[in-house]
């Protein structure tokens, strides 16, 4: 619970950033870092704390994104309301995937595979069905007012992204200190031992995937509002799923600050790489993938694990 004041402090310190910053480019960079950090935090709930590695988080992200865009474009519902419903949509998809997977006892690689399959099925459906705009996608009409969740000046987006990350930090901190979180970790560490202590493992995992899906859904809705364009490849494609897991794994899986750290480091490297290779396609991900391989080989607890190790050494060992 000591984390809460720290999170509040972090948020307050970050708040004035847009007014201190001159560069629009830099602000956009920070917004993207925050966005991916939040997406990573979503994955981290299920993958880091729950120990269930999803390779198809796009299924929840995309559902949120499509929910948000369809509600405003086809039904005229206010995007802020749509934003909340998108979270519910992501959570709902999480429940569906989770119910099927966990009911049938899927774990480890099988669970990863099935989430991948679900994301692909959704992608194919989205590119065939009319009300998602099929392959053409959905274009959200430009109407830049705060009430319409669109901001001409990026500051508004920045504040929402910051709020989401703060939300993610809060949720994660609660996981580390609450009864639910302890039970989730217990299930991750040893499912049978957890069951023998009265924990309903199925229910626990289901709650985790619902929470993770809801957060990913919110991320999807934010994406919709920021880019105002969505298609099946963006919403349900593998690149979102990959980003969602790269960020927390490299930053430090199952830790509070892992996703944020991972996002900052990865996207900073990416920016530098883009400059050096004049935005050649694929460079980013080659670097990300290489980092992940190296990380798993030499630093499985991620960058945050490295930070902890240094802290422990500096503190004289414990």
């Amino acid at each position, binding site marked *: 619970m000591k984390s809460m004041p720290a999170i509040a402090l972090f948020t307050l310190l970050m708040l004035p950033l847009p007014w201190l910053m001159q560069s629009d480019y830099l602000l956009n960079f920070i917004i993207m870092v925050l966005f991916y950090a939040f997406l990573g935090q979503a994955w981290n709930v299920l993958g880091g704390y729950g*120990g269930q*590695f999803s*390779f198809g988080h796009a299924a929840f992200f995309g559902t949120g994104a499509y929910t948000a865009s369809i509600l405003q474009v086809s039904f005229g519902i206010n995007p802020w309301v749509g934003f909340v419903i998108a979270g519910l949509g992501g959570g709902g998809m999480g429940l569906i995937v989770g119910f*099927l*997977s966990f009911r*049938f006892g*899927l774990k*480890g*690689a*099988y669970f*990863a*595979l*099935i989430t*991948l*399959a*679900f994301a*692909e*099925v959704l992608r*194919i*459906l989205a*590119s*065939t069905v009319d009300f998602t705009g099929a*392959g053409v996608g959905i274009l959200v009409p430009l109407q830049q007012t705060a009430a319409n969740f669109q901001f001409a000046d990026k500051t508004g987006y920045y504040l929402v992204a910051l709020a989401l990350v703060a939300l993610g930090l809060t949720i994660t901190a609660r996981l580390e200190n609450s009864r639910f979180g302890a039970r989730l970790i217990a299930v991750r560490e040893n499912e049978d031992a957890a069951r023998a202590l009265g924990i309903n493992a199925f229910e626990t995992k289901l709650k985790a995937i619902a929470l993770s899906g809801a957060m990913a859904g919110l991320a999807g809705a934010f994406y919709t509002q920021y880019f105002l364009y969505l298609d099946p490849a963006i919403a349900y494609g*593998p690149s979102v799923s*990959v980003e969602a897991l790269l960020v927390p*794994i490299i930053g430090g899986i199952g830790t509070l600050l892992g996703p944020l750290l991972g996002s900052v480091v990865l996207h900073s490297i990416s920016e530098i790489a883009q400059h050096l290779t004049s935005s*050649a*396609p*694929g*460079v*980013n*991900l*080659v670097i*990300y*993938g*290489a980092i*992940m*391989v190296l990380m*798993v*080989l030499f630093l*499985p607890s991620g960058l945050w694990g490295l930070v902890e190790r240094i802290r422990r050494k500096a503190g004289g060992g414990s």
Partner: protein
Amino acid sequence: MLELELFIPATINGLTTGAVYAVIALGLTLIYGVLHIINFAHGSLLMLAMYGVFFLHTLFGIDPYLAIPIMVPVMFVLGYGLQRGVISRASHGKDENVLLVTLGLAIVIDNLALYLWSSDTRIIDTPYAFATIEIGPVLISTPKVIALVAAVVISVLFWLLMTRTDLGKAIRAVAKEKMGAELVGINVNHVYAMSFGLGIACLGVAACLLLPTFYVTPQVGFAFVLIAFTVVVLGGMGSFMGALWGGLIIGVTESLGGLYLGESLGQIGIFVLFILVLLFRPTGLMGQRS
């Protein structure tokens, strides 16, 4: 609905494609059966092999079928090296780490291909690309028949390797009982790497069989890995016969799915099948262990 004129060619088409899927899945099955790892990089390595065949043809004029003796050893060495050098060091005792490493490799390979060769579709032109063979009332494209025959030959060779050679016996020993194998003096690390290498060598063959009738882009890796997994899961993780049957079934499913539901929606059939098998029979139709 079931107009035989459309149904039979589609089915036969599916069988020929399925045969190549079976070859791909054979490699994946070997890797899973022996090392008990799910190789997410399988599709990416296939894609790499396909580019290999493409460049051998475009730059050196080598016919894809004649490229088999080149691709097989190259892919074998690549696989051996990856397992010995990278994957074996990943586990640190946790299975998830191997999962992540193979995923990481897939990401690196897919995007390296994107960076080096762009996302342009590459196809090759061979004199027999449009030749056909008549079998009864049906006309089947020649390369596809070759693919089917080659796949059968490879499977037989594979079977012979597994049952008649010392290496095959060592592999089966390690797959069944690693510690016991070690105790009788088998170098398990070497066997693991050999198995991985063989699994990837299969991709060399598959690439040569695919390229005459198919195309390559950096994205095909992802598409193939899912199909390969569906085949393996359907046929039963660790069962070679299952991989064969699974490949044929998936090939036909894809073909008929495409016929009745259209190109894109047809793909769904495979993934839905995959999900259903994972949920209800993860040991597959013929699998021994889940």
